[in-house]
């Protein structure tokens, strides 16, 4: 769809789940994001949303998501208000989320909600008169993360079709892995998975990938991955997943990327990570020409600017 159509399609729309996005919606956001891409350095000030207010309601802390949304709104000339943790506010005192959202919606033009319970953003969007953007609802969805991941893959490799993408780490509980894998199934990709036995892909997703004919290899170490993969998406393995600390230590050292472990893949490989990393990606990987995870973080602002502009902005001036 062209720019005008994209604005029409997104005007006033809530963004709750990557599952709500068809291929053309995904592409519309990625295309719109090009305009805001600073190509390194800082984002330009483009006052397209002057006088508009973004409320960031974070019922659990997620500093990067919040700052990224706020930076995007400020770069667009809009303003932000909100809270970073619920105990700073009276929101946690028994008022229903639906009521709280209804009230906040009357103070602002768009809401970003982060909430520890699954489905909170969907519920909020049903109670709100202004669009709600899901900044993460429990272990369910974080759609803008998926969009910025897709944007980063397309930007760094130049395409989305014909790619071989490998996911590494917590395949079982990793929300980012599930959402991105699902979104990538809209394209002609081959998906491989690297992780410990206990954190294998959920059956439902595995079957979905397989039924689409897009399942590459499922292996338990980076050494077993095909050399010709284009993208390696690493995620953190949470300590809490392992009742026995010794098991965790074993897994942690087995799923640690180092510069040396990446040598055999060639320099065209792109390495992504949703950040923050702990030690699953060694510092020396930063020097790999394909290490794009900091750019990925910057792309978060780019994509959120595009999304806010699509939802709140005027299509005609684009």
């Amino acid at each position, binding site marked *: 769809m062209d720019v005008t159509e994209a604005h029409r399609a997104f005007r006033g729309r809530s963004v709750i789940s990557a599952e709500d996005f068809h291929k053309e919606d995904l592409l519309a956001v990625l295309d719109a994001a090009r305009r805001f891409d600073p190509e390194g350095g800082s984002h330009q000030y483009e006052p397209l949303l002057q006088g508009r207010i973004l409320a960031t309601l974070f019922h659990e802390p997620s500093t990067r998501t919040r700052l990224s949304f706020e930076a995007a709104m400020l770069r667009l000339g809009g303003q932000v208000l909100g809270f970073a943790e619920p105990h700073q506010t009276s929101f946690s005192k028994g008022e229903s989320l639906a009521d709280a959202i209804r009230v906040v919606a009357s103070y602002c033009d768009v809401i970003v909600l982060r909430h520890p319970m699954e489905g909170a953003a969907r519920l909020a969007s049903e109670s709100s008169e202004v669009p709600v953007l899901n900044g993460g609802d429990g*272990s369910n969805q974080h759609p803008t993360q998926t969009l910025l991941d897709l944007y980063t893959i397309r930007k760094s490799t130049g395409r989305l079709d014909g790619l071989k993408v490998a996911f590494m780490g917590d395949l079982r509980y990793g929300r980012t892995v599930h959402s991105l894998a699902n979104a990538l199934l809209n394209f002609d990709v081959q998906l491989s998975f690297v992780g410990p036995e206990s954190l294998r892909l959920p059956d439902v997703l595995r079957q979905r990938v397989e039924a689409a004919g897009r399942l590459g290899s499922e292996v338990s170490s980076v050494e077993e991955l095909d050399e010709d993969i284009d993208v390696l998406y690493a995620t953190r393995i949470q300590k809490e997943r392992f009742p026995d600390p010794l098991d965790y230590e074993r897994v942690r050292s087995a799923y640690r990327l180092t510069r040396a472990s990446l040598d055999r893949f060639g320099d065209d490989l792109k390495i992504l990570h949703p950040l923050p990393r702990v030690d699953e990606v060694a510092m020396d990987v930063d020097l790999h020409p394909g290490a794009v995870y900091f750019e990925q973080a910057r792309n978060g602002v780019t994509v959120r600017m595009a999304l806010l502009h699509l939802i709140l902005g005027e299509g005609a001036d684009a």
Partner: protein
Amino acid sequence: MRGPKDFRLSDGTVIDHLPVGTAARALEVLNLPRGGPVTVGMNVPSTTFGRKDIIRVEGVELSKSELDRLALLGQRVTVSLVRDGDVAHKVVLETPLEVEGILRCPNPTCITNQEEVVTVFHRIGDFPYRFRCHHCERTRSIHEETEEALPTRR
């Protein structure tokens, strides 16, 4: 030994064409036994379905909300209302694509278990059905619900 007398209802309800294995769930959903005697047939040969489960309850008529819940168990669950020994009314239940206000989400951290929300579930695929929670997006089978039935809020 079952005599024909056990099969004949004078006033009550026959729930027929339940998929094999769902009779127990149906009893739970309908809070049976109540009313009069209840006869349950499981894995009964059927001309149209191969095998089926069937329940006969004396002295009970089902409400709309109970029919809505039974409709989730199979593709063509048939409910006959019997009065004075004759079938007074017969309906074939259709499983809706969207189930509103009937199921509870089994995910404890789903927002619908904290806030007062009318739950919505989307039916996925063909029988045996799975249902996806509109809010938290988890899928469940019909057999997962073990809590008290939610009242229908329509």
